[in-house]
C-alpha cells in the first residue's frame, strides 16, 4: 500500500515534469524562468499545504465540505493586519494570537452552525458553509470597507548575518528569487505541518480524532465523546488558516475576499493528498503549487487550468489521493 502510494506520488510528479521538461534549446534561454516557476510554486505550495491540512482534517473527520475555509482565512488575515497596524505586532508574532483566536472561532462556528447539520445531506452542509462565508465576507466589508490593504515588512529586504552565512534578501537561487516573507511562510508552514502530524499521530487527542474519523460508532463505544472531537477538529482546522492568514499577510493583501482563492485550491489539494492525510496535504500542496506555476510557463494566463486538469485526473483515477486511504 505504502509503496503504491509512493509510486503514485512519483507518477504525478513525473507527469508534471513531463509537461514541464522542455524541448531542446528552450532550456538555455528560459532556465531562470523555469527555476523561478519551480521555486515560486514550492513556496506558495507550502502555504497551500498548511491551508489544506486544516480542510483535510475537517473533511476527513467531520465529512463536511467546508466552503467557509477561505473566509476563515480572511478573518485571520484581518486579525493579523489589525494587530500590526494598531499595536505594531509583527505578523509572525501575531501567529501566537491568530492561531488560538481562530481555534476559538472555529469551535464556536462548529457548535452553533455545523453541529446541527452533521447528518444532513452534502448539499445542505455545503450551502450552510457557503452561507457562513457570505456572512464573514460581508461583515468584513461592513467593518473594514472593501479597500484592499497591505503591509510591507521593514526587514523584508535586509541582509542577515547568520555567522556561517550571510543571507541577503531577496535571495537568489539558480537565478530565481526567494523573498523573505515567502520563505518564512514556507518554513513555518512545514514546521506547523510537522507539529500537526505529531499531534494527530502521537497524542491521545490525535488517536481520538483518528478513531472518530474511521469508526465514529466504535469510538463512541470506547468512551470517546465524538461530538467534542468534531468540535475540536473544526477548531484545529480553523487554527490552520489562522496561521496561514498571518503568514500570507506580508506578501499578499487583505480585503473581504482575500482568502477566497484558497478555498478551491485547498479542496484540490485535499483530494489530491487524500482526505484526512496530513502528509498527503503537504505533498498535495507542493504539487499544486508547482502545477500552477509550471502551467503558467507553458499556457500563460491559465494557471488554474492545469490545476483543475490534475484535480480531475486524480479524482477519476485515484480518488483516494496520493497518500490517502481508500474511502469508506
Amino acid at each position, binding site marked *: 500500500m505504502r509503496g503504491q502510494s509512493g509510486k503514485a506520488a512519483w507518477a504525478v510528479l513525473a507527469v508534471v515534469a513531463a509537461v514541464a521538461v522542455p524541448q531542446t534549446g528552450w532550456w538555455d534561454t528560459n532556465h531562470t524562468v523555469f527555476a523561478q516557476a519551480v521555486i515560486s510554486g514550492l513556496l506558495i505550495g507550502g502555504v497551500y499545504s498548511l491551508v489544506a491540512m486544516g480542510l483535510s482534517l475537517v*473533511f476527513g473527520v467531520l*465529512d463536511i*465540505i467546508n466552503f467557509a475555509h477561505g473566509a476563515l482565512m480572511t478573518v485571520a488575515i484581518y486579525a493579523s493586519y489589525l494587530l500590526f497596524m494598531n499595536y505594531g505586532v509583527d505578523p509572525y508574532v501575531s501567529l501566537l494570537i491568530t492561531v488560538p483566536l481562530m481555534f476559538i472561532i472555529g469551535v464556536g462556528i462548529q457548535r452553533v*452552525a455545523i453541529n*446541527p*447539520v452533521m447528518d*444532513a*445531506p*452534502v*448539499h*445542505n452542509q*455545503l*450551502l*450552510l458553509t*457557503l*452561507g*457562513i*462565508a*457570505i*456572512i464573514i*465576507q*460581508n*461583515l468584513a*466589508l*461592513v467593518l473594514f470597507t472593501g479597500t484592499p490593504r497591505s503591509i510591507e515588512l521593514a526587514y523584508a529586504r535586509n541582509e542577515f548575518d547568520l555567522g556561517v552565512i550571510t543571507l541577503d534578501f531577496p535571495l537568489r537561487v539558480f537565478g530565481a528569487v526567494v523573498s523573505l516573507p515567502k520563505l518564512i511562510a514556507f518554513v513555518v508552514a512545514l514546521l506547523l505541518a510537522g507539529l500537526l502530524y505529531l499531534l494527530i499521530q502521537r497524542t491521545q487527542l490525535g488517536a481520538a480524532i483518528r478513531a472518530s474519523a474511521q469508526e465514529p460508532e466504535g469510538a463512541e463505544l470506547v468512551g470517546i465523546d465524538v461530538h467534542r472531537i468534531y468540535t475540536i477538529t473544526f477548531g484545529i482546522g480553523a487554527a490552520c488558516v489562522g496561521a496561514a492568514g498571518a503568514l500570507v499577510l506580508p506578501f499578499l493583501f487583505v480585503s*473581504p475576499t482575500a482568502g477566497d482563492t484558497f478555498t*478551491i485550491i485547498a*479542496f*484540490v489539494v485535499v*483530494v489530491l493528498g487524500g482526505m484526512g492525510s496530513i502528509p498527503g496535504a503537504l505533498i498535495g500542496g507542493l504539487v499544486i503549487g508547482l502545477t500552477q506555476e509550471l502551467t503558467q510557463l507553458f499556457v500563460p*494566463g*491559465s494557471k*488554474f*487550468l492545469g490545476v*483543475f*486538469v490534475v*484535480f*480531475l485526473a486524480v*479524482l*477519476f*483515477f485515484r*480518488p483516494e489521493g496520493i497518500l490517502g486511504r481508500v*474511502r469508506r
Partner: protein
Amino acid sequence: MIVRLRQLAAASSRDLLVLLAVVAALALVPLGVSTFTLSVATAALIFALAGIGWNVLSGFAGQFSFGHAAYFGLGAYTVAVTFTRYSISPWLGLVLGGLVAATFGLLTGWISFRFGLKGAYFALATFALAELLRLTFNNFDFVGASIGITIPLAGGDSWGSLQFEDTPALRYFVALGLVALGTLIVIAVTKSRLGSRMLAVREDEDAAASLGINPLRAKLFAIAISGFITALAGGYYAMFLMFVDSDLAFGPSISVLILLRPIIGGVGTIWGPVLGAGILSVLGEVTRSLVRDPPSFLNAIEGVNGLDQVLFGLILVVVIIRAPDGVIGWFRRFRSRSIT
C-alpha cells in the same frame, strides 16, 4: 417501494392540474407590474428552470452537482454562437444547446460514475468541470474569449429570433412556457419507470442493483435530462441578457444560484425549484430594501453596503439548520406534527 411508485403515478394527474393552476397564476404576473419587476420575475423563472434541471440529477437521482453552471453555460454559448455566427434561430439553438449539454453530461457522467465518484467527490468533480469550461471559454477566441458575445438586436419583437424588445411580457411568457415544459418533463420522468429507478438508486444503489436496475444507466439518464433542462435555462438567459461571457455562463456563482432555489424550496420535489425561486426573489428584495430604506429605529444601517448580504447569509444558515428539507419539507413536517 412498489406502493410508493403507485402513489407517484396516481399523484401525477394531480400534479398536472397543479401545473396548470400555477402557470395560470403566474401568467397573471405581467398584469400591472412594471417592466423592471417583470424582468426580475423573468430572471427568477429562468433560474427556477435551471434549478428544475439540477433537481433531476441531484434531487431525484441523488447525485449532488456543484457545477451545473457547466450545462447552463453550454446552453448559453450554444445559443449565442449559433445565432451570431450562423444565424440559426435561437429556438433551434435552445434545443441544440440542450443536446450539447446532455452529451457533455453523458460523457463526464459516464467517466465520473464509472470511477465510482459520489457524494462530495462527485460534487467537487462537477465543480472542477464547470471551472475548466470557464477557463477554456475565457481563452477561446472563437467564442469571444474574455470579451464575450453580444447578441445583436433584431429590432422590436421577433418570435423567430426570440427577442421581445417592445413587449417584455412576451419574454416573461416564453420563460414561463419553458418552466412549464421543464416541469412537465420532470412530472413525466417521476411518473415513469425511469424515475422510479432513479429514486431507487438514490435511496440505495446496491439494493437497486439487486433488483435488476442498472444504476449507471439510471444516473446517466438523470444527468442527460438534467443537463438538457438546465441548458434550456442558460440558452434563454443568453437571449434575455443579449450577452454571454465566461463568468455569466460558467461562473461558480451561477452554480450556487442554480442549486440555491431547489434546496430552499425542497430537494427532490416537483415544485421545490419554483417555490424556492419565488421565496429567494422576495427575500432578496426584502433584505435589500431593509438596508436601503430601513424602518426608523434601524436608521443606523441605512446604506451600509454588505449588510443585506450578511442578513441573507444569516437567513440561509438558519433555514438550512431549521428546515433541512427545504420549505416544502418543512410544511410536510409541520402538517404531520399538527395532525398527531
